[in-house]
C-alpha cells in the first residue's frame, strides 16, 4: 500500500525520559470476566464530571426521566452533557460530595430507580456514519456526553478536529499499577474498540490508527490483533510499548511513538496526532451504533483491601459503596479508598460518592500497605527525583523553591510543566510528599494571579475615580478663577469712577454706596446662579 506511515517504522520506539518500573498487581482483577451489577435504588449524577464549567440542568424535581435522557446540557465548549443511567423519578437536585481531589461538594441530580429500564427513543446512526459529515458526527459525540475516559475527562468532540491529523493513537497503555479496566475492555470488546476508532478516524480523517499497549498485557494484544486481522484493512496497527510508568500519559505516549515532543503550551494536533483512550473509542462505538450516551463504564474495583477484586460494568451515578459490596465488601484491614491508581489517584474520605465518567478504578489499600508518614526527612539533594522525572524537571530545586515560596524561581524551573505523575515522590529517600508541595505551589501562584488581576481592576477603577475627582476640582477652580477676575475688573471700574468724581465729595460718596450695593447684589445673584 502506498499510504505513508506518518511516523516510525514498526518497532522503532523512542524512550521515555525518567519513569519507573513498578510492581503492577494487575492480575488481582483480571482473572474474572467483566461482571454486571444489579441496579441500585438511587443514582447520584454530578453535573460536574469533566473539566470546564458545570452542566446546566434540563430536568426538574419530581420529573420522570427515561434511561439515556439528557439531564443537563454542556455549560460551555469544554463542558459535557450528562444523561440518566436508568429510568425513574428525579427526587432532588442538590449539593453532594463529588469524587474530586478537592473533596468539595457540587450540584448532583438524584434519581430514584423505577426498575423499568425504559429507554428514550433511540435512532442509532449505525454504519451510515461513513456518509455523515464530521461536524454532524462531532455533534452526536457531544450530545452523548462522551469525555476522555482515561481520567482527564476532557470532552472528546473538542479534540476531534480535522486539523491535518494523520495519526490516531488509541491509548491502551494503562501504565498505573492495579488498574485493568482498559485491559479487560480490549480483551472482551476488541471489535467494538476498533469500530469506535474507525468512527473517530472518519471524523478526523486520519490515515492510520496506532493502538498502543504495554507489553505486560499479552491477552489484550492478542485480542486486538485478532480483531485487526479480521478487519482486513491496514488502517490499524498495534504498537507494543515497554512497560514503564508513566508511558500512558498523553504527551509521554506521543513521545514514545513519534519520537517528538508536543511543543510547550500546544496541542498534539500540531504533530499531526490525536490521542484517545480505548474506552473512549468504545463509548463512541456505542453512541453511534446503539445511540447510547455515556451512561456506563468499566471500573476496576481492586486492591488488597477488597474481598473479590474484579472489573465491573457500572452505570454512572452508582454509589461506590454498592460497587464495593458487589465485590464482596472491604477486608478487615482495609485502609484507604482511592479513585484512580496508586500513583496519581486521590484518596476519598467516604464511599457514598457516585462513580463518575472519570472513575477508572477504585483501589482499596490495606493498613499494612500504608506509606503515610506524618513527617519527612530533609532533602539531601540526592537527585533520584531528577532521574525519575519524565518531564526532565529538577524536582529537588522545585521543592526548595516551593518551600521558600520563591515564585519567580518556581516559574523559571517550569513548575507548570509538572504532570504530577508522582515519580519523584515515589523514589524520594527522605519521604517528601513532593507532588503535594507542587500542587500547593501551583494553587498559590494561581490564587496570587487571580488576586493580582482583580487588584489590577480595582486599581484601574481607583485611578479612574481619582482622575474624575481631579477633573471636577479643576473645573470648579476654573470657575472660581473666572468669577474672581470678573469681580476684580468690576472693583477696578468703580475705583476709576471714584477718581473721576473726587471733587464732588458728596455725590461721590453716594455713588460709592450705590456701586457697593450693586456689586454686592450682583455677587449674590451670581452665587445663587452658581448654586
Amino acid at each position: 500500500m502506498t499510504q505513508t506511515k506518518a511516523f516510525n517504522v514498526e518497532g522503532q520506539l523512542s524512550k521515555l525520559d525518567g519513569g519507573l518500573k513498578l510492581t503492577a498487581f494487575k492480575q488481582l482483577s483480571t482473572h474474572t470476566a467483566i461482571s454486571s451489577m444489579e441496579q441500585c435504588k438511587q443514582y447520584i449524577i454530578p453535573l460536574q464530571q469533566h473539566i470546564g464549567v458545570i452542566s446546566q440542568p434540563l430536568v426538574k424535581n419530581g420529573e420522570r426521566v427515561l434511561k439515556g435522557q439528557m439531564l443537563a446540557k454542556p455549560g460551555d465548549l469544554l463542558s459535557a452533557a450528562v444523561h440518566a443511567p436508568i429510568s425513574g423519578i428525579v427526587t432532588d437536585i442538590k449539593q453532594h460530595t463529588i469524587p474530586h481531589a478537592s473533596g468539595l461538594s457540587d450540584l448532583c441530580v438524584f434519581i430514584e430507580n423505577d426498575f423499568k429500564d425504559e429507554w428514550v427513543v433511540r435512532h442509532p446512526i449505525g454504519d451510515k456514519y461513513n456518509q455523515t459529515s464530521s461536524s454532524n458526527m462531532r455533534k452526536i459525540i457531544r450530545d452523548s456526553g462522551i469525555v476522555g475516559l482515561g481520567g482527564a475527562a476532557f470532552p472528546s468532540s473538542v479534540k476531534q478536529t480535522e486539523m491535518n491529523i494523520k495519526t490516531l493513537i488509541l491509548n491502551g497503555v494503562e501504565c498505573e499499577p492495579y488498574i485493568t479496566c482498559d485491559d479487560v475492555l480490549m480483551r472482551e470488546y476488541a471489535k467494538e474498540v476498533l469500530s469506535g476508532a474507525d468512527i473517530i478516524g472518519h471524523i478526523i480523517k486520519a490515515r492510520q490508527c496506532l493502538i498502543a499497549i504495554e507489553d505486560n498485557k499479552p491477552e489484550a494484544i492478542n485480542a486486538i490483533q485478532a480483531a485487526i486481522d479480521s478487519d482486513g484493512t491496514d488502517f490499524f496497527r498495534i504498537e507494543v510499548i515497554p512497560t514503564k510508568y508513566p508511558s500512558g500519559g498523553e504527551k509521554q505516549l506521543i513521545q514514545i511513538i513519534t519520537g517528538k515532543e508536543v511543543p510547550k503550551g500546544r496541542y498534539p494536533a500540531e504533530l499531526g496526532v490525536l490521542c484517545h483512550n480505548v474506552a473512549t473509542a468504545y463509548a463512541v462505538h456505542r453512541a453511534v451504533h446503539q445511540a447510547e450516551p455515556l451512561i456506563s463504564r468499566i471500573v476496576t474495583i481492586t486492591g488488597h483491601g477488597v474481598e473479590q477484586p474484579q472489573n465491573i460494568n457500572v452505570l454512572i451515578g452508582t454509589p461506590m459503596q454498592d460497587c464495593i459490596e458487589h465485590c464482596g465488601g472491604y477486608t478487615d484491614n482495609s485502609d484507604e479508598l482511592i479513585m484512580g491508581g496508586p500513583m496519581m489517584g486521590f484518596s476519598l474520605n467516604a464511599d457514598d460518592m457516585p462513580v463518575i465518567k472519570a472513575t477508572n478504578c477504585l483501589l482499596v489499600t490495606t493498613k499494612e500497605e500504608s506509606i503515610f508518614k506524618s513527617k519527612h526527612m530533609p532533602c539531601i539533594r540526592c537527585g533520584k527525583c531528577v532521574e525519575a522525572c519524565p518531564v526532565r524537571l529538577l524536582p529537588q530545586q522545585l521543592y526548595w523553591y516551593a518551600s521558600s515560596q520563591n515564585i519567580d524561581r518556581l516559574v523559571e524551573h517550569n513548575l507548570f510543566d509538572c504532570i504530577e505523575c508522582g515519580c519523584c515522590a515515589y523514589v524520594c529517600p527522605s519521604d517528601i510528599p513532593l507532588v503535594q508541595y507542587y500542587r500547593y505551589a501551583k494553587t498559590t501562584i494561581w490564587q496570587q494571579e487571580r488576586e493580582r488581576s482583580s487588584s489590577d481592576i480595582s486599581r484601574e477603577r481607583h485611578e479612574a475615580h481619582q482622575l474624575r475627582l481631579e477633573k471636577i476640582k479643576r473645573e470648579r477652580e476654573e470657575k472660581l478663577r473666572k468669577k474672581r477676575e470678573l469681580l476684580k475688573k468690576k472693583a477696578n471700574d468703580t475705583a476709576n469712577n471714584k477718581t473721576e468724581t473726587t471733587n464732588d465729595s458728596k455725590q461721590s460718596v453716594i455713588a460709592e454706596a450705590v456701586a457697593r450695593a450693586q456689586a454686592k447684589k450682583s455677587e449674590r445673584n451670581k452665587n445663587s446662579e452658581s448654586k
Partner: protein
Amino acid sequence: MLFNSTPSPHIKQSITVQDMMVKVLYALIPGTLASIYFFGWGVLFNLIIAISVCIGTEAIILKLRQREVTDTLLDGSALLTACLLALALPSLAPWWITVIASISAIAVAKHLYGGLGFNPFNPAMVGYIVVMISFPLEMTLWSAPMGVTNGGTIGWPDFITTFNWVFLGVLPYGETIDSISMATPIDLIKTQLNQFHDIIETRNDPEFSALFSGISGTGWQWVNISFLAGGIWLVKKDVADWRIPTAFLISLVIISNLFSVMDYSSNSSALFHAFSGGTMLCAFFIATDPVTACTTPKGRWIYGACIAALVYIIRSWGGYPDGIAFAVVLMNIAAPLIDYYTQPKVYGDPNR
C-alpha cells in the same frame, strides 16, 4: 464508611536516607581496612575520636536546637562525616586536632546552617580545612607506611608509641616526631622540587625509594585502590552519582597527563595523581556528597571536572600537602550557580 485521606502517590520505594548512609559506610570498609593496614593504629584512633566527638556534638546541638535526637542520630550522617574526616586526617594527628576538626565539622559546617540537607559546604572538609589552616605542621604527621623503613623501625609505630603520642603527646626517649613520621609522596615530591631535585631524582634517591614502590607510592596505591573498589560498588548500588567520580577522574587524568607529557621530570604522571593522596576517597565519597554537590546531570559533570582541576592546581603549585579539601569547598560555593545555569530543557521546550 469513612476513610483517611493521604496525598498521592500511595506507593513508594522503600529506600531511605539511612539506607543510603549505611551503604556509604559499608563502601568505606575496604579503604578503611587498607588505611589501618598501611598507616597503623593512628587511623583507628582518628576514627574512634572523630566518631565519638561528632556523635556527641550532634547530640548536644540537636538538644540545644530542640530537635529529635535519637531519630536524627540514626540517620547516620554524623557517623559518615566522622569517618570521612578521620580517614582524611594524618594518621599521627594529636587527639585535639581530631577533636577540633570534628566539632568544626558538625557544629559549624553542619548545624549552624540548619543541619542535614541545609549545609552548603561539605562538613568533613570544612573540619579538615579548619585544622589545616590553624595547625599546618601537625597536619603533615603521617606515619611511615607499612613496609617502609623509617629510622630504625619498619613501618608505623607500635600501639603504645602511637597511643602515647596521639593522646599524651609523649614520644619514646630519644625519639623526635620526625623519626616516627614521614612525608607523603605528594608532599615529598613538592618539597624536593622546591629544592631543585626533580621527580626522577627524588624517586631514585635511596633515602626515599622505598616510599615510591608501585605506581603511586607504597601504601597509598592500595588505599586508593580499596577506596576505588568500594566506590564502584557504591555507584553500582545507585547510591553515589556516577557522573561526579567519572568527571573527576577523567579530568584529573587528562590534566595531569597533559603536564607530565610536557615535562615529566617536574610533573608526576596521571596514574600517580589518580592513585595518590586522597584522590579516590574524594572521587567517590567526598565529591559525591549529594547535599553540597551539583544536582543537575550536566552540572555534575562540570562540578566533578572542576574539582579535579582545582586539586591538580593546589597539589602542584599550592602550599598544602593535598588540595582536595580546598577544591571541594571551592566548588561547593559554585554548585548553586552551576545548578542554575545547567537546568535541563523540559519536555516540549522549543529551544531543545
